[in-house]
């Protein structure tokens, strides 16, 4: 309890910028004494959640060790989420991502196009009523192809990022915990993999394994975990000297338990921020693969493959084969980067408050 708080019975005023009750709803303002009384059964009473959330958000750092780490943490995450959703650019980024997921996965259900059989009689047609964005050099409807191409881009992007994150998190946690020679060897290996430009590795592997969504995700995911592993290792190195980790160890927690229960959850914020950047990078990478002619095998569509002939399309004046799909690519990548930046800022705020 800090001295600046009014004595019991006094109205409690939240600092500006913190929680504000939704408009139109008169939230009961609990007195400090009330909220202290409720401290004990925070999680048990779903009612009056707003009333509870506020004192915890403010008192977090002062409640002392017996105040319960879980609540402080939870309020930290909530704080980060709130910070995230108050960022306008983050909302825009998230909105763009949701829009593209809907467009690519739900759109084809309403906008029926044939993306498997070529139509030599209708190639390179300019946009018209039948084909909203015209047709490409195989006679495929460009708008429909953007949808199915977007499916593969998003699938590969997210799957590769997820895989890289899982591998990197485990690798980094093990390296940071092991310390000493093991750590040095493991991290030198990361240095080696970081030194070879990823595009080189991926292109070389794509000469042999490139046919499917799965194989491209695997290729990218298996070679882009270096950055998350470094991030997690750094977090683990700072976390493992913290008191709560020492306490867990003294109480007889096993190494596995330390990693899974204490270190990884606490290092999660850096990992989550990095995922969004990994998705963006992976989407750019498969686009580059497709452009260079090592994309998915016919007839699976991808945005990069669609741009593979774009230099001819540009010189022939077939703008609809270049700018719509390129614009989609830039928008999705930009949205991922926006969300990532906003998440980083949000977690920064959370860490400052903690």
């Amino acid at each position, binding site marked *: 309890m800090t001295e600046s708080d009014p004595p019991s019975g006094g109205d409690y005023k939240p600092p500006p910028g913190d929680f504000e009750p939704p408009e139109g709803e008169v939230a009961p303002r609990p007195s400090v004494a009330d909220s202290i009384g409720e401290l004990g059964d925070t999680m048990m009473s779903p009612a009056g959640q707003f009333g509870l959330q506020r004192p915890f958000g403010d008192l977090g750092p002062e409640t002392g060790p017996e105040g319960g780490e879980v609540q402080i943490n939870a309020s930290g995450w909530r704080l980060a989420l709130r910070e995230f959703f108050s960022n306008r650019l983050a909302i825009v980024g998230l909105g763009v991502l949701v829009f593209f997921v809907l467009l690519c996965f739900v759109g084809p259900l309403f906008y029926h196009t044939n993306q498997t059989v070529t139509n030599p009689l209708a190639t390179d047609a300019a946009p018209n009523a039948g084909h909203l964005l015209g047709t490409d050099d195989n006679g495929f409807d460009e708008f429909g192809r953007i949808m199915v191409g977007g499916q593969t881009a998003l699938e590969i992007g997210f799957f590769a990022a997820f895989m890289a994150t899982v591998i990197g998190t485990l690798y980094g946690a093990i390296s940071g915990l092991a310390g000493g020679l093991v750590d040095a060897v493991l991290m*030198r*290996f990361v*240095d*080696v*993999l*970081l*030194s*070879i*430009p*990823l*595009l*080189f*590795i991926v*292109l*070389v*592997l794509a*000469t*042999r394994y490139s046919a499917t969504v799965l194989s491209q995700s695997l290729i990218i995911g298996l070679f882009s975990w270096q950055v998350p592993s470094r991030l997690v290792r750094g977090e683990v190195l700072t976390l493992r000297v913290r008191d709560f980790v020492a306490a867990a160890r003294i109480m007889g927690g096993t190494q596995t338990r330390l990693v899974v229960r204490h270190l990884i959850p606490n290092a999660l914020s850096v990992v989550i921020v990095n995922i969004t950047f990994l998705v*963006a990078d992976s989407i*750019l990478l498969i*686009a*580059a693969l497709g*452009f*260079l*002619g*090592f994309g998915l095998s016919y007839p699976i569509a991808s945005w*990069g493959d669609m*741009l593979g002939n*774009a*230099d001819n399309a*540009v*010189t022939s004046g077939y703008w609809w084969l*270049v700018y719509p799909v*390129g614009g989609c*690519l*830039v928008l999705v*990548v*930009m949205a991922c*980067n*926006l969300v990532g930046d906003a998440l980083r800022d949000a977690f920064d705020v959370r860490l400052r408050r903690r």
Partner: protein
Amino acid sequence: MTGYIVRRCIAAVIIAIGVAAVSYALLSFTGGSPAVAALGTRATKYTVAIWNKQHGYDHPLVVQIVDYIWNLAQFKFGYSYRQGQSVGALLNENAGRTAYLSGAALVLALVIAIPLGIAQAVKRNSIGDYVATAATFTLYSMPAFFLGLILIQIFALDLHLVPAFVPDSITTTWQAVIHPLQLALPILTLAGLTVAGFSRYMRSSALDVLAQDYIRLARAKGLSERMVLTRHLLRNACLPIITLIGLSIPGLLAGNIITEALFNYPGLGLLFYDALQSLDYPVLLAYTVIGGLLTVVGNLIADIAVTVADPRIRLD
């Protein structure tokens, strides 16, 4: 200081050896032996096996890797059976043009990014800052080839200022240097991508410096704003750029492949791209290793340069 540099160099050598080993393992995993390239697609299994035995490709992977690194140390990069030339000669022939393209792009990127980042930091949260941030953020999210295509559309097809693709007449490095207009688009593409990363760092680095006490002191003692910016801000804010140049090498190398393939500019990137299509493994291996080594050396030089330039940094 000397101790740090020596330790850093030893680490770099170890990483360099690792780069060669991992690249070799990767290539042998992908296909590796150039037997088919040497003997033709109609070679029987039997002749391929004999060829592999004659050229050491039947040894265990570790032995092959050690052999390869030993050859590398003597600057032997192998022989391209597809092109009928030693890989060293091929690399040597193309390196100058790629170095020129990358160097020009890097210099252009610095010339744009440093003043831009500082101007953004000084006039932070102004309209200009927002516009510049939006522009660099868009560039940052843009695939290299799409940026190149847009530049082709604007400067070559609409404005007719420069040729859309690098003409075949550009065959030597010297010709590339004396025809800046023919190379304007590839250089601009590569520079645009680099600017995107640099200016963001430059802006935040300049913001950090602006908050320092010595800037306040410089203003307090009555220095003109111009002097504050050029004498105190610029030099300190540029320190992270040294590291950033080192870190930008992998991006430049990857950008080279895409830009050279798009604009048909004969350099190492195009050599690599052609080797990918003809499965010319020795060339692929050599350029992958060189790409890794350039990155290692670049980071090493950047690390040492930073400690020399900024005595406050002690990386022990």
